[in-house]
């Protein structure tokens, strides 16, 4: 056993944010005050104690979701780096049932054999993406084309900013190809655009806003897309 280390609540909470206890589902702990960190764990353990008797883990799930929401929304205090007063808005040019609908997600998916090689690295691991997330935040994002008929076994996902475990087991949690294709069969939409796109949302916001996003919009316009479903992670 190593010598016990005296650790403050602040240090403990921060260690879940890319630190010694890195856990992207729990990285929100960094955004809580020390008192709130105490409240989170006290509530979690109370729910866990109740779960010992009835086995209903749903309350644990709800607790985590509620504190994620609280952590990211309660301390904004006008700190928003990007806030806009206007709302750019285009209207549908045809009924949805005749429309070509494209999908773009910031999930970090790509097709096997077409790795965008972020930061110039071949076959970057998820662990390296998490470790180097600060470098991602300074770079412009790359848009990966994903033909919508790609077999799920050919999909890859890597993203240093969020827990990818769920997306690895089912891409539809943030790349909802199955649902879009079902709605095409049903007739709610005219067609799913042949190419979905994904990028790593942990990226330079200024490079994205000033250069990349308008270029992507032009690509979609050239491809005569009628509407776009966007999925941030």
């Amino acid at each position, binding site marked *: 056993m190593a010598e016990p280390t005296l650790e403050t609540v602040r240090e403990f909470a921060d260690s879940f944010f890319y630190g010694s206890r890195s856990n992207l589902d729990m990285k929100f702990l960094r955004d809580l005050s020390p008192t709130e960190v105490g409240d989170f764990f006290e509530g979690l353990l109370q729910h866990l104690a109740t779960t010992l008797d009835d086995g209903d883990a749903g309350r644990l799930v709800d607790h985590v979701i509620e504190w994620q929401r609280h952590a990211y929304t309660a301390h904004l205090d006008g700190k928003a780096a990007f806030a806009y007063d206007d709302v750019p808005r285009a209207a549908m040019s045809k009924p949805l049932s005749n429309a070509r609908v494209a999908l773009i997600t910031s999930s970090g998916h790509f097709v096997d054999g077409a790795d965008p090689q972020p930061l110039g690295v071949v076959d970057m691991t998820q662990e390296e993406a998490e470790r180097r997330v600060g470098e991602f935040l300074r770079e412009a994002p790359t848009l990966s084309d994903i033909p919508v008929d790609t077999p799920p076994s050919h999909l890859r996902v890597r993203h240093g900013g969020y827990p990818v475990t769920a997306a690895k087991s089912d891409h539809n949690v943030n790349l909802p190809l199955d649902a879009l294709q079902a709605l095409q069969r049903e007739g709610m939409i005219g067609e799913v655009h042949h190419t979905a796109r994904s990028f790593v949302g942990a990226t330079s916001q200024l490079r994205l806003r000033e250069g990349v996003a308008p270029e992507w919009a032009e690509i979609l316009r050239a491809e005569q897309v009628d509407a776009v479903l966007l999925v*941030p992670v």
Partner: protein
Amino acid sequence: MSVGHVQRAIESAGIPTVGVYVSAFGHVPAQMGVARALITPHPMGRPMGAPGDAERHLAVVRHALSLLERDTDQVIESFPDGYRPHSPTTV
């Protein structure tokens, strides 16, 4: 924020959009002025629902796409049902 910027750029290019945001980022659509958003009460990384919950994924996409035909300047709605973890054994 990334998708907020992309959503604004696409709308500015004349193509209507809708975004599906988890509740942790539920403040982003209003803050960034995106035209249409659906907020889901799901954990980060799973805006459509739990892995394997195809029924929920379909309901979320259906709800989101329905917002495209609303004739209002900005529409931000919340998905009505709570998150439900999906166990393969209950399929």
